[in-house]
């Protein structure tokens, strides 16, 4: 473990910081939220930048304050923190700059990440893959992982790099990615895929049941889907709708 500060961080240290940022939420807690995770991630850089003693302790303490953002987009902030800490270590800026940088960015980036990853990319890839289960079978699972993680991992690495190289200016670069508009398109794909899989289930159920009832069963299953949509939109709990549908189908299956 080095006790001599470095002028610039090595690739090895930067890689360690990135890999440790994957543990950002390991000790998520209600008071400081991701504070332990952030301090844990940037610690190798702080060890390289500051000599053992009060300077390093002070640097660690300023990253143990409240911190919370989206875990993927946090890579940009982690990179930005390293960028600021390098300048602080060189005496080019005061420590309050890095604290202000985190405070200013964590909220907006959390909203951006939640909207794109949690509310758009995840539902879209999940619904498309679930809809492809009838066609691809078990191969729908690796497809889901590849589709999701191509975007997730590439963006995570890119955001970290933007933070490292641009510091405060990363905001403009992130804005140029236009994630909200892409998210809206992905949500439409999710809805269309969900509708498609509902229709496939209904029609194939009718076809498998066969006989005179086949069109009726398919139509009934589709009607159940539409009714469920309306009920859930009117805030009837999902579980209630699911159990009622199962009960109705059980009765129909037992007596038809």
């Amino acid at each position, binding site marked *: 473990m080095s006790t001599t500060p470095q002028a610039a961080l090595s690739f090895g240290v930067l890689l360690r910081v990135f890999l440790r940022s994957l543990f950002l939420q390991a000790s998520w807690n209600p008071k400081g939220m991701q504070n332990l995770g952030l301090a844990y991630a940037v610690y190798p850089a702080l060890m390289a930048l500051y000599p053992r003693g009060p300077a390093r302790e002070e640097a660690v303490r300023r990253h143990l304050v409240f911190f919370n953002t989206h875990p993927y987009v946090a890579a940009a902030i982690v990179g930005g923190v390293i960028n600021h800490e390098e300048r602080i270590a060189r005496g080019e800026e005061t420590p309050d700059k890095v604290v202000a940088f985190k405070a200013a960015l964590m909220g907006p980036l959390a909203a951006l990440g*939640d909207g794109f990853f949690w509310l758009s990319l995840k539902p879209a890839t999940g619904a498309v893959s679930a809809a492809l289960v009838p066609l691809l079978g078990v191969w729908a699972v690796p497809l889901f992982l590849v589709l999701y993680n191509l975007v997730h991992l590439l963006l995570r690495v890119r955001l970290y790099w933007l933070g490292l190289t641009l510091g405060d200016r990363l905001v403009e670069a992130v804005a140029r990615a236009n994630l909200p508009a892409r998210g809206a398109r992905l949500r439409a794909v999710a809805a269309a895929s969900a509708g498609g899989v509902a229709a496939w289930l209904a029609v194939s159920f009718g076809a498998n049941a066969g006989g005179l009832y086949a069109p009726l069963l398919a139509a009934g*299953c589709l009607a159940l889907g539409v009714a469920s949509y309306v009920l859930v939109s009117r805030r009837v709990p999902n579980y209630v709708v699911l159990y009622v549908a*199962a009960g109705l189908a059980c009765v129909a299956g037992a007596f038809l």
Partner: protein
Amino acid sequence: MSVVWTHVALAGLWGGLVALERKAFLQAMLSRPLVAATVMGALLDDVASGLAIGMLLELFFLGTANLGAALPENDTLAATGASAAAATLSAATGASSTPAIWSLAVLLFIGLGRVGRRGDRLLEGYTARLARVALASAEAGNLTRAMRQNLWGMWPHFAVYGALTALCALLGFFIEPLLQALPPVVVRGLAWAWPAMASVAAAIAAQGSHARRAPLYAGLGAAVVTVSVVCVLLLEDR
């Protein structure tokens, strides 16, 4: 009925690993129901159960998201628990898995999503204690100890949810006599419940997609698929 303990152990191990991935490390979606349940099925020699349950629960929980401090239902625990129970249940019957088994497993174990949310909330008390230890250690100048606290936060998730999933796998063996005791009409009813529940889950997914014109897009998707499948069926009949 004989319990296959290797299945119980494998279920616990995979349940614990995906619980870690969901909350503490990477979050590359290995913990999503479609993946977690299918792999569970593969580990317990019943891919069909895992895939079917994974697809249904993926759709059912599609709209859930961990936003800020709000905790969503634990879709991973519901998926690993239900798929483990379905796999051991069909292993206990000695036959291949059926839609009736999938329905029974989902109806009995989908509530684990809420149990898991409660568990997540309780585990936050432990991580709050770790945060206090880390702050005190940093104040005292013991930075290595302060940083180590972050990793200690992961293991309760692995242990608690691994144990719960193993318990579900064990329960699957004990539910088998119950399934055998059901009258044939009820088993037929459970088989019909499968496509009905999957349709409902898909409708919930469309609603949970957060799309601005979700009914329009879902309707378009349904229309295209209906026409395509009907055309294929008619061509096959010729």
